């Protein structure tokens, strides 16, 4: 079992994915022009406001997990300098994505609540900033959504690259997509997992609570959800199967997960709440056109919990090659 990186790295990788996924959900709805098709969209509001605080919290946890970097915080600036390191890429991506997310959240709130925007513009300090009064909030928001989407995808992918980049040291983390496709699968799996947790927290939780009629406007919502779960199932399956076929430490890790000491976490905390249950809920919803509030909430919470434990399990299941 891998013991150098534990819960804290798992949590901040998960938060990065969750924030990135939620951002992408809001951005896609905005950029496909679904945002204004109905008066109020809880999905974009949650999807736009969650990423900033969530990813910032992840960054705080990352800093807290450091050793000397926590006691001498100026060293963190050195982390921006070494571009062969996926960790440097991550610090750069997060440094740019976090402010963008906060900006996107701010713009989305101002756009959704014009009275709030009016309040901001009426403040003493704001009256001097004439550009604020001419600011086309919707247009700026769309630009931020586009630029931010690139960073969101980057954030979700880099969490997988971080682990797979250690290559031969941890064979399970560098497992290929398939035995004949020489690309690590973790970046793809973590990207789709990020999307899934993003959809879970925005559509399942927020929409269920505040705007259950969103299904009438986006009829394909359950199908999109099913597609994401389906692709994630495929990728997770490929990870385990290819790892088994690779033999050695990778196969030992896969065995630990599926039938070994980690199997309870795998089946009970990842597969059932994150894959099986949401699949059933959304298969029903695809047919009926909606789902009950309880199952929506259950599906969303299940997906989020599953996403966290998936990162944790992959991290602790790594078995070094040299043992």
């Amino acid at each position: 079992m891998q013991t150098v990186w534990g819960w804290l790295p798992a949590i901040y990788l998960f938060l990065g994915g969750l924030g990135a996924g939620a951002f992408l959900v809001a951005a896609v709805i905005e950029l496909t022009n679904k945002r204004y098709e109905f008066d109020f969209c809880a999905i974009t509001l949650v999807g736009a406001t969650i990423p900033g605080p969530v990813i910032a919290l992840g960054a705080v946890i990352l800093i807290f997990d450091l050793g000397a970097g926590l006691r001498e915080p100026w060293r963190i600036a050195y982390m921006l300098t070494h571009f062969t390191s996926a960790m440097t890429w991550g610090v750069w991506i997060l440094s740019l994505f976090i402010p963008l997310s906060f900006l996107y959240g701010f713009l989305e709130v101002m756009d959704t609540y014009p009275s709030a925007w009016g309040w901001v513009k009426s403040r003493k300090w704001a009256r001097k900033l004439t550009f604020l009064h001419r600011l086309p909030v919707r247009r700026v928001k769309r630009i931020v959504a586009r630029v931010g989407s690139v960073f969101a995808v980057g954030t979700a992918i880099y969490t997988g690259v971080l682990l797979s980049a250690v290559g031969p040291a941890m064979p399970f983390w560098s497992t290929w997509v398939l035995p004949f496709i020489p690309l690590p699968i973790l970046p793809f799996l973590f990207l789709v997992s990020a999307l899934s947790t993003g959809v879970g927290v925005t559509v399942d939780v927020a929409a269920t609570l505040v705007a259950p009629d969103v299904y009438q406007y986006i009829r394909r919502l359950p199908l999109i959800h099913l597609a994401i779960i389906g692709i994630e199932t495929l990728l997770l399956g490929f990870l385990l199967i290819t790892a088994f076929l690779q033999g050695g430490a990778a196969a030992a890790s896969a065995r630990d997960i599926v039938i070994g000491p980690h199997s309870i976490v795998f089946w009970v905390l990842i597969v059932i709440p994150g894959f099986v249950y949401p699949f059933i809920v959304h298969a029903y919803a695809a047919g009926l056109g909606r789902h009950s509030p309880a199952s929506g909430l259950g599906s969303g919470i299940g997906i989020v919990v599953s996403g966290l434990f998936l990162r944790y399990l992959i991290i602790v299941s790594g078995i070094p090659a040299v043992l």
Partner: protein
Amino acid sequence: MEKHLLSRRRFLGLALTGSAAVALGARLAPGGGIQASDETPTSPYALIIDTTKCTGCGACIEACRLRNHLPEGQSYIHGLLKGDEHVRWYLMVQCQHCANPPCATVCPTHATYVRQDGVVLINEKLCVGCRYCIVACPYQARIFDEERGVADKCWLCLDWVLGGGVPACVQACIPGARIFGRTDDPNSAVSQLIASGRAQPFHPEFGTHPAVLSYIIEG
């Protein structure tokens, strides 16, 4: 359908291309660095561990621990138990001082670096304690110093070596399983062992090209 700059299709295409590009980058990025040839030694120093003489007594581990003031149970050297029910033997692992070290590649702050003489060192003042190098070392040769919050490892007792001496582990080895010497002296024991092909790098398939450490494993 409205005309907009980022259609669904284009967005999906961008996302997929982007993710493929990054994944490809992940495959290409690490391990890019000095590709040392197998013939030219990249370090004037060589430390050869003769596993046929090693008794697994652990004197090297303890000498390293004491020399470096490490707490009980910690050392820069650890032993891997090898073999089967017929023959059991120990393989002592420490930093291999690779010419192409993954630790240096993944370190975000340049704290880990390779010297001209091939010795891999850690500049403590730059280390943030992210532990990426510890995870990335395929030999699992690095440890985390909880007290100082930095990564730590074998530094080849450079102060003694530069003065013409040998590392603590070599001094402490009772059965004489550790041989240290200079590769730029063709008459040295290490040069002859390397030339004979008896001393081989550990796990060469990792692509790390250990520059200092090699092992005699026979039978």
